[in-house]
Structures are given as C-alpha cells and as structure tokens.
C-alpha cells in the first residue's frame, strides 16, 4: 500500500490478509491462492503489509475491550490515512469486525469476503475455470459461523462451488443450522473446557458421514480446526480440507 501511496495511485481494492493469512503456514497457502487468482484476473490490489494489525476480534470476544480498541483504532488510523474505500478479506472474522464493528469507531469501508469477491469476478467474466480438477467429485461445504449466521451469507459460496462442476453434498447441520468448528469466541487460543468431546471432532464426523472426499471451507480457523479433527480420525489421506479459493486455483 505504501508503494501505491508513494506513486500517488489508488488500488481497486485492499486485500486484508489477517493474522492467520500472514503467519499460519496452512492459511498462507490460501493467501497465495487468492493472490494468484487476483493476479490472473488482473486486479490492481494492495496489502498493508506490516502496517496491518490484528482486527481485534479474538480479544473483543474474550472480553478484552482495551486490547480490541487499541488495535482497532490503530488500524482505522492506517486505513483512513490511505483513504481506503474497498476491502476484501479471506477471513470471516476479519470481515465481520471490519464490516460491522469498525463503523462505531469511525472506520467506514465497503468490506466484502473473498468468496463474494470471487463470485463477482465470475459474474463479471473476469474469471473462468476449466472445471477439470474436481469435476464430479463429492464436496461438502462447511459454513463458518461468522460468514453464515453472523452475516447471513450462505448461498454465495455455494454458487461459487457450482462453477467447479462438483457434486455438492450437504451435511445435516448446514446453513442456518450449521455446526461451529469450535474455534470462534477466542476458543482458538485456549484449551477446551471439560467435556466429552471436541467440537471439531463432532463436526469432522458429520463431514465424513457425507462420503465427500473434499471439505470446502471459507475461514482459516475452520480449516485449522477441521484439519486437526481429520488428523485425530486418521483420515487425512482420504479427505482434504480446502478453502474455496484453493479449489478454484487448482481448477484454473
């Protein structure tokens, strides 16, 4: 972004990478897949790089409003400083916080999730797939809580999957009734409370029950949770967990 600013140009959109997308080895692959698609579609985008901070979602949901406000206000200063209007992100937690919570703090942007963005690229004809890699394969889709129930986006990712000629098999708990992966509300950063079972195990069992060999997701934390669950069931060689952007890049 600093480069754009120095040249006095403005990108079409700012790609908000997020902590997971920047640092987590698995989520970095999603970041790269998404960037490759953006490049293939010839999109002029920018990132904030080291000027980006955590949106503050886990701190706020854990109850730590001070930490949330500090990181959020700093981000808003940066974003407003560059006069950013459009933001796309591959993380539904970043998406929710930027879109729904930053306005009260003085940060108003047009924020969209990467599944929406990709769908738009298809509609605009800027993106197409050969429909090879996953044609006819059974894929199930896991709704993340923050894209689904929190923001009511259920159909866009499914439309996107249809572009890939896959056979979409739904889990029993899907869309508004979708089961959480277990990571939200800052659970990602702590041990589970005592119980009978891990939530990700419960979800993975349901996904395996569909007979799908690919689980499509839209959130880096879901991907971590589901991958851990699959490993715990020792099914990692049979069933793969992918972000939708990874499925697209493999089909291009």
């Amino acid at each position, binding site marked *: 972004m600093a480069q754009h600013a120095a040249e006095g140009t403005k990108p079409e959109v700012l790609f908000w990478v997020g902590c997971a997308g920047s640092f987590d080895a698995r989520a970095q692959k999603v970041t790269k897949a998404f960037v490759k698609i953006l490049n293939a579609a010839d999109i002029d985008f920018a990132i904030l790089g080291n000027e980006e901070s955590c949106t503050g979602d886990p701190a706020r949901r*854990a109850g730590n409003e001070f930490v949330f406000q500090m990181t959020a206000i700093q981000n808003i200063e940066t974003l407003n400083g560059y006069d950013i209007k459009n933001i796309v992100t591959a993380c539904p937690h970043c998406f929710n916080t930027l879109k729904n919570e930053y306005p009260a703090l003085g940060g108003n942007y047009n924020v969209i999730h990467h599944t929406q963005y990709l769908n738009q690229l298809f509609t605009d004809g800027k993106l197409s797939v050969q429909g090879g890699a996953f044609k006819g394969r059974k894929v199930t889709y896991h709704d993340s809580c923050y894209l689904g129930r929190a923001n009511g986006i259920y159909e866009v990712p499914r439309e996107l999957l249809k572009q890939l000629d896959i056979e979409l098999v739904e889990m029993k708990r899907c869309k508004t009734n979708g089961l959480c992966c277990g990571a939200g509300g800052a659970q990602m950063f702590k041990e589970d409370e005592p119980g009978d079972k891990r939530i990700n195990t419960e979800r993975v069992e349901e996904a395996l029950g569909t007979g799908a060999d690919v689980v499509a997701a839209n959130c880096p934390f879901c991907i971590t949770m589901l991958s851990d669950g699959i490993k715990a069931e020792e099914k990692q060689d049979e069933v793969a967990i992918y972000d939708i952007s990874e499925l697209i890049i493999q089909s291009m």
Partner: protein
Amino acid sequence: MIQQIIFILISGAAFFFAFRQFAKIRQTINLGKDHTPTGDASERWKNVALVAFGQKKMFKRWIPAVLHGFIYVAFLFTQIELIEILIDGIFGVHRFFATKIGFLYPVIINTIEILSFLALVGTVIFLIRRNLIKLPRLHKSEMKGWPTKDANIILILEILLVSAIFTMNGTDVVLQSIDPAHFPDTGPLAISSWLGPALFGGLSESTLLFLERAGWWVHILTVFAFLNYLPVSKHLHILLAFPNVYFAKSKSRGEMDNMPEIMNEVKSMMGLIPESEVDMEAELPEFGANDVMELDWVNVLNAFTCTECGRCTDVCPANTTGKKLSPRKVMMDIRDRATEIQANIDLGKIDCKKDADKPLTKENYSDGKSLFDYITKEEIHACTTCNACVEACPVMINPLEPILAMRRYEILSESAGPSDWVPMFTSIENSGSVWQLPDSREDWIQE
C-alpha cells in the same frame, strides 16, 4: 343474583392479583440498565407480526410447530368466548352473543370447538413427549425439579380447560332440546352435537343444569388460575413474546456493542482526541456485567420470556459436546437472580444495602452475591460465539449477549480469565498479531 355477585368478586380478585404480579415483573425487568431500542421501527413491527404472532421461527421444527400452533390458535380464539363468559357472568345472562351476532355465532363456536379438540391432541402428545418419550432437550440438568413440574402443570390445566368447554357445550346442546327458551339454538356444533348427546343424553334436566354450570365455572376458574399462575411460570412467554420480539436488538448478529468509555480513553491515549474531551478524573465505571443491574433491561426481558424449550441448548456446540454451558440455563439463571434481587428489595432487607444510610434501591443493592454464583466461569468460557442459540430461539432471545457481558466483567473489572488468553492479548498489544512471531507479515510473498 348471588351467582353474579360471587362471579364479580372472583373476577375482580383474579384481575387484581394478576395485575399486581405483572407490575412486579415489569419492575424486576427494570432492574436492568437503561437501553434505548435502536433500529427501524417498521422492522420491529414486522418481527412482531411474523415471529411473535406468526410463529415463523417455530417452523424450523415442524412437529412441535404444528402441535404448538393448535394450542396457540385455540388460545387466541377462546378469548372471544371468554369475553362472552365475562358478560354472561356479570349480567346473569346465557350465551349473550348467541342472539346478537347471527350466523357468526355458530361459526365462532364451531371454530373454537375444532381448535379445542386439536389443542387437546397437541397437549396429550406434548405430555407423552415430555414424560414417556423423554425428549433429550427437555431433560437436561437445568430442567430438574420445578421447570419440569411447571411444564406438566400447564399441560394438565389445558386438559382441564378443554374438558370444561366440552362439558359446557355438550350439556348445552342437550338442554337446547329440553328448554329452548333458556338455551338459545347454537346450530349444529362440530363436536358437541354428537359428543353431548352421547355423553349426557338421558340425564335428568337438573343433572344437566348442574353439569352445564360446573363446566362453565371450571372453565372460567381455570382461566383465572392460569392468569395468576403465568407470572411464576415459563408460560409468561405467551404475553412477553410480543414485547420481547419488538425490543430484540436489530443489528448485525456478528456485532458486539461498542464500549464508548474505553474507546474514548484509548483514543485520548493515542492523542486522537484532546484530553479535555475525556474526563480523566471521572471514576471509571465497572465494565461488563456481574449482576442483573449491569445487563440491559432487554436481556432481563429475554430471561422472563424464555419458554425453557431448550432449542438453544440443543444446538449449542459446547453443550452438545458435553461442556457445562447451556444457553437456556444462562437465561433461567438471569431470571432467577433478578427475581431474588427484586424480592429482597421488596422485603426491604437492610443487610442488602450498600450504603446503610440510603434507601434500598437497585443502585444501592449488594447482597454479597452476583450472577457468577449462578453462572460459573467455566460455563461462559466454553462459548464459541457461534450464534446458533440466537438463531434457534423461537422468540428472539439472545443468550450470547449476557455471556459476552460477563466475559467483559471478568477480564476488564477483575483482570481474571483463562490464562491461555494472556499471550494472545499481549501479542496483539505488542506485535499487532494474535501470535508472538518475529517474522514480517509479508514473508508469504517470497514464494
């Protein structure tokens, strides 16, 4: 005449005591903090029409939606009959509307008959589901004791009510042929026209007259009992569901309420607003909620509206994997704690005063207990903020909001909370990332 006087006295007393109890509940709900409803009024009225009146969210589960629908619609229609009973009782007349509204009367009475029968079917199936099939969501630990009894009491009252209606109508049909002068023709009735003669045909006129009166009295007395029982029961939802749906916060489900005090303090720390605009001397209030008084009154209204149906707990990922958290229990606990506080205030307990020289009010209340004595930290720590409970609730209750308010109290006011979270907090503060990592945010570009 004597009958009329007794009736007027009993109805007066029933309405008086019920009114007092409802006023008390209103007061208890107002223990919560002030909160002005935000958002669009037309959106709210739409919710009242669709979700409260139209029971839209019940239809996520068809079987209970239909059965509950029978009882609900029967309840709505019976109100017309109740007006008639009140008029008959006060003026000593019989079936006042029968001669006044012409062909509409048999239509209404027949509708009530059919609905009452369907409600009876619903009630019996509900009793079976609860007590014989033992549906898991109705038998979680928080349902032990009173909540289970409460549910059964109301179902049995419903059976009593319907039996009274059919006794009243059935004997009436038989009496119409014996004494048409006093028993105006109601036309054929869907159920009583055959059930009446089958059950009561051949009985003496005096027995019939007695049974007719008995049915009439049992009907109205059950209604009065029900009215006075509502305030201590989960069945309060039949009234509160309407305001509750109207006042439900209309904002994105993913959005947590902003805390302007903290925002302004942070902004002034960062030099973004002049210090003069922030009163640094002002004593910082306690943040979050550790008791009912720090919740919004809408949260308390939610608690009193809860039907204890357990749809929320049934879909809660924490609960279904064996954690202690149950969103239904959270709502029940808030209600019980609020009731306890209001009772102590009403009794004027001096040992519940914070400041002994001031009167006992909600602001001056401290009994050494808090909401954390009802809802443990282990419970609130287990929540994934997934919104499944919010989505599932048929009357638009939000159990997530109080859970998050309690988390805020624990972290901000007590500086406590799960120790696992501390590295995440410090890392965001120091390096702007949830993980303490030395690398740059751009390293992924290298490949």
